[in-house]
């Protein structure tokens, strides 16, 4: 008896360990990607889990520094006349006299020459260093720790959103700590460099995320592109979900319940179209869109459907697999429900919209999620159809644009990682909230998607 109990517990433990291992395997890359997307150098090797941006001391410091500078503690900035206090500690060996750091406010902006076009006020022109003094010197293990304090003062009458700073000390004088951890250490340890000492809490912690929104803008309209891309993707996904729900349920109902000539042939054709890979019909689809569906789009004043949302939506009104899911569902509903409605005098439309559709909530839910996820992640077809301007891109193509902007020119992976992470969020949330529908979607169709 006792033996059986022990074995049962051992089984449970084994299963839990196995599940734990699986969840680490699945969640590990996700957590790692998130941590990396916060880092100053996401490609650092070996990767470290101690991210500056996740240390509470830095949170407090970034909030306090922005507050002192006369900006908002959360969103940052340095107001006119603002003044913030900064401390930095160096280690020197006993035979070396510590030297106060050389403090420079450089003319620097993240995002390269392109962002420099947008800067109207450089911190370098307004911010001055004041009251540099040694405040502490204490012996440490085998040398001295010396702390310097100074203030940065905005002498201009403009508000600055970025105040970069570089400190340089002689060789062998080693940096130990500062009010705010530096974003990078350069010149063999001599220079400590900050992107923005008055960043504020959120831009400090989510620096790469802030950059994604700030650095991608449209010259013609001046609007931020990343938000537009998200909006475009949401619009496309919702439109496609609506058309899919409507047409899939109507077609599925017709195929399942109505009797008409050629039904078998249509269904066979539907099945056949599911078997053809997208790549085969790609060129003909492209030509159909280019000519505006045999010239029909000219009736609406569009010479071509390329580079339009109409083209994307029309070419993806409904997928054969969605029709298939709905047909399978309607076939399983008992015929008696429909018959009783007909006896009461309901027309086919009434039966469909009043009786059948309300019963079809579970497959419609599954279809919603599968379609939303499919459209949200769709890449190849929008890449071909939507070419310009950048305001029109859906998020997936926008991410490709980010890769061009950061990956090919400067190997600046932070914003790319941040952008990718943002694009993954909606689907993850959707998955967690509607988990059961996903499973149902699989059981309805036999396959995913």
């Amino acid at each position, binding site marked *: 008896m006792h033996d059986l109990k022990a074995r049962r517990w051992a089984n449970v433990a084994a299963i839990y360990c196995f599940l734990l291992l699986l969840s680490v395997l699945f969640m590990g890359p996700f957590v790692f990607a998130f941590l990396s997307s916060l880092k100053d150098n996401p490609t650092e090797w070996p990767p470290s889990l101690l991210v500056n941006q996740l240390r509470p001391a830095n949170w407090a410091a970034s909030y306090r520094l922005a507050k002192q500078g006369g900006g908002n503690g959360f969103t940052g900035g340095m107001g006119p006349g603002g003044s913030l206090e900064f401390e930095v500690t160096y280690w020197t060996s006993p035979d070396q006299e510590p030297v106060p750091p050389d403090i420079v406010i450089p003319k*620097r902006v993240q995002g390269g020459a392109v962002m420099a076009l947008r800067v109207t006020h450089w911190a370098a022109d307004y911010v001055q260093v004041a009251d540099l003094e040694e405040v502490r010197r204490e012996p440490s293990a085998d040398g001295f720790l010396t702390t310097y304090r100074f203030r940065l003062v905005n002498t201009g009458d403009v508000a600055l959103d970025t105040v970069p700073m570089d400190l340089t000390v002689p060789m062998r004088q080693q940096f130990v700590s500062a009010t705010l951890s530096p974003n990078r250490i350069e*010149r063999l340890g*001599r220079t400590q460099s900050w992107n923005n000492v008055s960043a504020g809490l959120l831009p400090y912690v989510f620096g790469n995320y802030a950059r994604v929104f700030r650095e991608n803008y449209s*010259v013609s309209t001046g609007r931020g592109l990343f938000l537009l891309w998200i909006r475009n993707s949401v619009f496309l996904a919702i439109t496609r979900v609506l058309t899919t729900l409507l047409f899939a349920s109507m077609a599925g109902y017709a195929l399942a319940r109505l009797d008409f000539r050629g039904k078998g042939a249509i269904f066979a054709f539907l099945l056949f179209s599911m078997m053809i890979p997208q790549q085969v019909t790609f060129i003909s689809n492209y030509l159909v869109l*280019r000519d505006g569906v045999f010239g029909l789009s000219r*009736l609406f004043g569009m010479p071509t459907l390329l580079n339009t949302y109409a083209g994307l939506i029309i070419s993806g009104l409904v997928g054969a697999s969605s029709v298939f899911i709905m047909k399978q569902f309607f076939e399983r509903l008992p015929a008696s429900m429909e018959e009783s409605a007909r006896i009461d005098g309901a027309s086919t439309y009434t039966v469909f919209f009043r009786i059948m559709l309300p019963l079809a909530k579970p497959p419609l839910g599954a279809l919603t999620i599968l379609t939303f996820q499919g459209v949200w992640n769709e890449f190849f077809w929008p890449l071909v159809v939507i*070419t310009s301007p950048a305001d029109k891109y859906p998020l997936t193509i*926008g991410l490709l644009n980010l890769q061009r902007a950061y990956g090919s*020119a400067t190997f600046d992976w932070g914003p790319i990682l941040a952008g990718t992470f943002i694009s993954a969020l909606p689907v993850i949330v959707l998955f967690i909230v509607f988990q059961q529908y996903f499973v149902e979607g699989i059981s309805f169709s036999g396959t995913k998607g």
Partner: protein
Amino acid sequence: MKRLTLALVVVLLVSFAASAQQVRIGGHGGSDTIIVEEMIELFVKPALEGTGITVQYEPISDDFQRYIVNALSAGTAPDLFYMDIFWAGSLISSGVVEPLDEYIAKSDVLKAEDFIDTLVDAFTYEGKIYGIPKDFNTLALFYNKDLFDLAGVEYPSNDDTWDTLYEKLEKVAAIDPSIYGLALQPEYARFGALAHAAGFVPIGPDGKTNLSDPAFIEAFKWYTGMAETGVGVMPADISQGWGGGALASEQVAAALEGAWMIGVFKSDAPNMQYGATLLPKNPRTGQRGNLTFTVAWGMNAASANKEAAFKVLEILTSEEVQQWVLERGLAIPSRKALADNPYFLQDSAEAQANRIVFLGASDGNVLPYRFGQYGGEWMDPINQALSAVMSKQATVEEALAEAQAQLDALMGR
């Protein structure tokens, strides 16, 4: 039914008549989008006022070559588009790019001789000019001053030959086992400049490549020899993807790179004390070598409004636009006249580096970064040989014999 057909015809006619003089220009996405759109706002729109011509930039995020080939065959390509020297040849030989000589002859502002000769030559096929270079890059020797200071060695200079540079790099590499002199990217895109300095020509007059050319072997041995002695290192061996990354990480003292390094320094190592000099001279020939990487504006041969497109092209390649681009450090201009621009005389490391890259195009054996109709395939055997020798998987003789065999197979096809 008749009425419907009539309406359809009317609609069709109206939509044809309404097509205004819109010039579409296609180029890279990413940061180019902002640069070109800014250029259009500042220069193109004011200049075209009253002509009825409008301009639209179409940035392509995807691989541009793939896009333009597809768009040209589908008939949806823009009127003006970027042409990279690396693949322009195949487009031009298929006849989809408009030759520009007639337009240039009629133009009062655009003259081919105003542009750097090697760049215009790169887009000249069978005596006809197919592209107006918009900007370019060459290789320079970028170095980290801190590491040279630490080693107590003079900075590399324009007088250096391969031998004197080697001595300097050797001393820097002696500081510490984790520090190397030169980043040795195993690619013809870097090594090629040295081969050209020695007198090597990628594709000879007979249409063949001869890797047993003593000039090639000399350069090959100098380059790979540094990996053997530890004076140089392949970036991959210090977990860096490319030479520029290795230089920015402060593990190597110098790298052969183009002006793109300036942007990399700005984002990855903004405080690096870097300098740039012309590539070292080959001690035997006394010449430098280089590769030009350039992009031109080409015109779509099937464009409906070529005259308008050429007007836009004139503005986009005008001196004032190029000056604007240069003064913001966005790209290096292709016009000769800008060699004397005050920007180049500034003291900043950035302006100096840009000047060196600019000068690189007209000093010594400078060849465009293109390899007949073979494209990247031509470089692969050589890149593999470089990599094999530097990772000690093959001797120089074995690797070159293998590469020659592959090239013969490629070019004999």
